[in-house]
């Protein structure tokens, strides 16, 4: 219930043009990976998934941010069923293991492989986590998702969002190829994401 209200509000605030180049989700676990400029990124992406898929699609989120304060904790745990990971510290590999466990259990993930929010001018090089996740679960389908204009809805450092029309594009799926190196794969995934953007950056 709360989920539906949150999804409707997110689309009223920041929704706009949405396009699926990927086949619609069929219940098989998927990893949606998107560019990251705003805290609203995963909320809007999640709100455009079919309601039946939302429960089983878990945003991967930074523990240090989302465990501050009861409101954030409530939303990330109860509404979005987020998978909280430690960004810093020695346990970065443990995060990949936990993501792989979720995928193996049949859940989908929302991931921001840039690792942190950017200004929206360009997509930063991807962190290795996406590659290691695919190594552990080579059969999982990846869906690049381009989110445009969210950096204007709620940029870094702002508290109040401003309504804005956005573009959300679910690109064609891809997979880790046999024998593909980390560098090639990450570059290919990033290129697939960039290709969805209007300015191609």
């Amino acid at each position, binding site marked *: 219930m709360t989920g539906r209200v949150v999804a409707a509000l997110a689309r009223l605030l920041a929704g*706009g*043009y949405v396009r699926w180049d990927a086949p619609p989700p069929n219940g098989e676990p998927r990893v949606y990976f998107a560019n990251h400029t705003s805290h609203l990124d995963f909320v809007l992406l999640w709100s455009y998934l079919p309601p039946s898929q939302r429960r089983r699609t878990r945003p991967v989120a930074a523990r240090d941010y989302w465990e501050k304060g009861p409101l954030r904790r409530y939303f990330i745990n109860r509404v979005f069923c987020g998978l909280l990971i430690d960004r810093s510290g020695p346990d970065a590999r443990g995060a990949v293991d936990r993501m792989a466990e979720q995928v193996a259990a049949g859940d989908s993930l929302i991931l921001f492989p840039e690792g942190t929010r950017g200004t929206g001018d360009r997509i930063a090089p991807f962190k290795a986590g996406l590659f290691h996740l695919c190594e552990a679960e080579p059969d999982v389908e990846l869906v690049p998702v381009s989110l445009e204009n969210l950096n*204007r809805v709620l940029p870094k450092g*702002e508290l109040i*969002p*401003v*309504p*804005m*029309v956005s573009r959300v594009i679910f690109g064609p799926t891809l997979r880790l190829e046999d024998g593909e190196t980390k560098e090639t794969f990450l570059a290919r995934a990033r290129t697939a994401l960039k290709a969805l953007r209007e300015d191609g950056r």
Partner: protein
Amino acid sequence: MIEDRELLWLLTGLAGTLALATAAGQTLRLSVGGDTIANVNARIGAWWVMSIAFVAATLTGGIGSLVLFALLSMLALREFVTLSPTGRGDHRALAWSFFVVIPLQYVLVGIHWYGLFSILIPVYGFLFIATRIVLSGETEGFLERTATIQWGLMACVYCVSYAPALMLLDIDGYDASSGKLLLFLVVVVQSSDVLQFVWGKLIGRRRIAPTVSPNKTWEGFVGGVACATLVGTGLWWATPFNPWQAAAMSFVIAIAGFAGGLVMSAIKRDRGVKDFGSLLPGHGGVLDRIDSLLFAAPIFFHLTRFFF
């Protein structure tokens, strides 16, 4: 439920017109088909939704209309700002515009404070937005960014708020609070749009503003304005006007609406887009639908307030 007989007639007429349009659209789909007909049918479908939302809001009295038009202002400003060259430094000014200026404007309309609602945005909003933006310290494109937001507020909020303000007019021997005058304005302005489109498609040849909007023709303009004037004249019984006055008002509404559509087209053309949004199937965004209302509402309000 509705005791006002004239209002009942207006609503029956509206529903009848839409039913006729639906029937015609479906007949054309089966006999002719094609993309244009599909687009027209999508538009008719959206017309039903818009009409029902609008009538439901109007029937609840002033509050419903105020909430509906405040929401329309937000959606319109959202589309406007999306296509504007605003930057990081404008975020706070925009947050104020959406969450303080818009509610305040409609509250002022709601409490009948004409003296303040008619100057809130042109005077205080004008000064406040510039001040709030300068405080961000970002000077690049300052005047362009500031002027754009001010223009957006004037068009999407100030002008739109004149529509529900019609329900608050004091007119001797006429109950404006029933929403009939608002319905009159919206019916005339929107039928002018539709009839200009229809006449333009049927016999339109000479372009009226080729660099701005290639679809607008002289034939569409004359036919649409003339027919909308007839529609408005035929509705004189629901207004405080006699038939001649209703004709003059409808004519002014249709002309102002045409100007609004043209101006918003110029903005879209400059930004390189066809529509402001994609919220309404076949129509584009909210701003695409209400562009003619923007210009017609304040003029109609002031003419009525001055002469009646």
